[in-house]
């Protein structure tokens, strides 16, 4: 890998890693000990960002404010179900926020994979072995690193599609690009992130 890139990525990456770890520890402390101080730290970092996400996805400010509070209340109440071996704290929060927004917009809840489904196919190598799961904090760090390595234009499209607008068409309009370009940037970004993570796993 390009040495300059690595050096450039190192600073923010370490800070981000420390932040990820602190937020994970906060969630675990809330789940185990109803730790109010941990909640306060988690809230102060994420609540305004959750609200920003909801506004970016098209909800009016007052609704976004109310839903953000509900989402943070859900964090406080459901932190016990958070498994630090399975997901980063930010991933867990992101899925709660995304699903809450969907449920607000629709009459019915989002139907997802049922983990008790008899048809559930497990990847024995990756999902059943404990070793694969303990690596999660490692994997988060690699993912962070992979994201930082993306060319600015790909990173921007990824960020916009998670946090702004409803569709690739909207993002294309936003950036004044053809929709095909937006889609191919997403594809390239996902591919290079996957390649980075796989090569890190095989090292």
């Amino acid at each position, binding site marked *: 890998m390009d040495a300059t890139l690595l050096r450039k990525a190192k600073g923010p990456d370490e800070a*981000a890693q420390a*932040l990820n770890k602190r937020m994970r520890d906060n969630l675990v402390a809330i789940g185990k000990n109803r730790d*109010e101080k941990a909640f*306060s730290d988690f*809230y102060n970092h994420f*609540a*305004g*960002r*959750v*609200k*920003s*996400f909801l506004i970016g*996805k098209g909800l009016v400010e007052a609704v976004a*404010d109310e839903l*953000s*509070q*509900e989402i*943070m*209340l*859900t964090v406080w*109440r459901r932190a016990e179900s958070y498994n630090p071996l399975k*997901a*980063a*704290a*930010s*991933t867990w929060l*992101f*899925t709660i926020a*995304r*699903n809450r927004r969907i*449920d607000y917009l*629709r009459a*019915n*809840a*989002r*139907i*997802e*994979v*049922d983990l008790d*489904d*008899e*048809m*559930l*196919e497990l*990847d024995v190598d*990756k999902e059943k072995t404990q070793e694969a799961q303990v690596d999660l904090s490692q994997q*988060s760090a690699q*993912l*962070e690193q992979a*994201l930082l390595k993306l060319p600015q234009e790909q990173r921007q499209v990824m*960020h916009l*599609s*998670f946090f702004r607008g*409803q*569709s690739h068409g909207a993002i294309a309009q936003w950036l004044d690009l053809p929709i095909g370009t937006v*889609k191919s940037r*997403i594809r390239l970004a*996902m591919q290079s*992130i996957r390649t980075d*993570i796989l090569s890190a796993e095989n090292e």
Partner: protein
Amino acid sequence: MMRHLTDETLQDYACGVLNASMETLIACHLTVCPTCRQNALLADAIGGLSFNDEPAVEITATAADILALDKTAPINAPGALPTGVFQPGVPRPLARLLPTTLETLPWKSFGPGLKQYNLGTQPRKEGAFKLLSLDPGSRMSKHTHEHRELTYIISGSYSDEMGKFRAGDISDLSGEHNHRPHVDSDVPCISLIATDAPVKFEGLFGKIVQPFVGI
């Protein structure tokens, strides 16, 4: 080789911008496909990490307010899911929407050897959500999609310009594709199909059957 979801679709799924029909269909494939499930988790993780790039806007409540709210606010249980009829060979996300087994559904015929069962409630211009059961040897008319067409194969198989699709596979097509599937299994090919805009059939026969197929 199993046929998978495209990265754009997985990413849209993670962002929560697809319609409910597509989400349910994707959950069917994710149930049987650990590879796509891993990729979906990866997309969620990217979404989570992207929070750090997001500026925090001011929020009216403080952490203490939320803790106070906890004492008074009712427990908002996650929205209830339909129970449906769980059955072998049908992933639960779809089974939840079925009133009975696949064999005993009130299928509607739309041509010799062609049956459908409608699951969608949205207006036609927002796309379709339905089960199709096509007898061995059936051909669909050649058609193009305005936006996206997802197909999850429940049983049997079909082939089109893209290749062969078997039970558990997903066909993830967007506007630029033009395809003509034909059933090549000995048993009927039962599939779940979701679109976000009406499809365009080619040829006279296609135009005649379209009102009956309604996709």
